[in-house]
């Protein structure tokens, strides 16, 4: 995998893209300002380079507004995580009610059986209630599992966005610094 252009990591020197650009920076700068003993760069070429560098700096400054978008996503994710927490609480309440329902339906079935022939109809009703409460229990367990699954995927996404935001802003800052250096060199 090493040497594969799509492979990430194991750089010959630390810190990838920006540093790679930085490593190539001196060569690029040489192309701009060092004419290798030839005639100096024409004033109009220099002015054009400065204008392009200025445009680049403005674009990088605009990119920094990404921080606002990251903050918005961050707030939305916090809200989503909070909703998940509330849903988990509701799910636990439902599970507790279902547990009590199962006990009640079991007691009802026992009482109906004790009452004998006169409560035959009630036996059927108690059995139906028990069957329904057992189905509710299965659904409640499935809901709990889904909430755990949702918690994990939401948290993983939340943390990825959080860390991703940090690394993108760091990359933009690096770019900003490089543009500043380039501009100073041209001037």
């Amino acid at each position: 995998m090493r040497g594969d252009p799509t492979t990430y990591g194991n750089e010959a020197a630390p810190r990838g893209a920006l540093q790679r650009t930085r490593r190539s920076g001196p060569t690029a700068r040489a192309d701009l300002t060092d004419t290798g003993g030839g005639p100096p760069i024409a004033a109009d070429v220099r002015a054009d380079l400065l204008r392009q560098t200025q445009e680049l700096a403005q674009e990088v400054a605009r990119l920094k507004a990404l921080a606002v978008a990251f903050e918005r996503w961050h707030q939305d994710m916090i809200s989503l995580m909070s909703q998940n927490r509330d849903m988990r609480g509701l799910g636990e309440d439902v599970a507790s009610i279902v547990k009590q329902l199962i006990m009640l339906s079991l007691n009802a079935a026992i009482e109906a059986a004790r009452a004998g022939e006169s409560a035959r109809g009630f036996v059927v009703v108690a059995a139906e209630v028990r069957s329904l409460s057992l189905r509710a229990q299965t659904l409640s367990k499935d809901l709990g599992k889904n909430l755990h699954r949702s918690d994990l995927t939401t948290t993983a996404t939340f943390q990825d966005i959080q860390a991703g935001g940090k690394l993108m802003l760091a990359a933009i800052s690096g770019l900003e610094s490089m543009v500043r250096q380039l501009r100073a060199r041209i001037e």
Partner: protein
Amino acid sequence: MLSEQTKQNIEQAFHRSLRASLVRAPDDVCAIAPASGPGPGGQPGEILLVVTISSFVFRLLTLFQVGADPATRAYYVSGAQQSLDEAFREFANMCCGALNRELAEQIPHLAMSIPYTLSSQCLAYLGELRPSFLSSSAVTINDSVRLHVTLCMCCSAAVDFVASAPPVAETTAGELEMF
């Protein structure tokens, strides 16, 4: 996306960060043994702390499953007012910080999230994240504090990582690796 060597190197880097960060005193003994998967989960009071290290092409979730047994509480919780969750966050953060630094020596553009607490029952759904690499270990400190740690790495491009420290000899399954 990940060679066996890279998986092994990342796991070893994680083990180094565990040894360096999960102990309270330098002479405490931290033993790490491979585990077939995360602990059973769902024990009363047990917490699951998650911290993610992200790059543009992968995310690496580190999951710390910490039991609320008296030995673990006594080791990590320093004051009566502090919860196990609060206390362990600091250790998880330091551990991932150490791993992040080691990975950043070779892998550009890395950043780390803040720790977040989940139910340990969430561990059953790690497959939902479609990981390229999953690895679990049982950690024992001073023969009394026991926790489970899991690495879950999801890649969207090939990643290569070479260990920067000399590799530590892995023990055979079931034996503890003493440091």
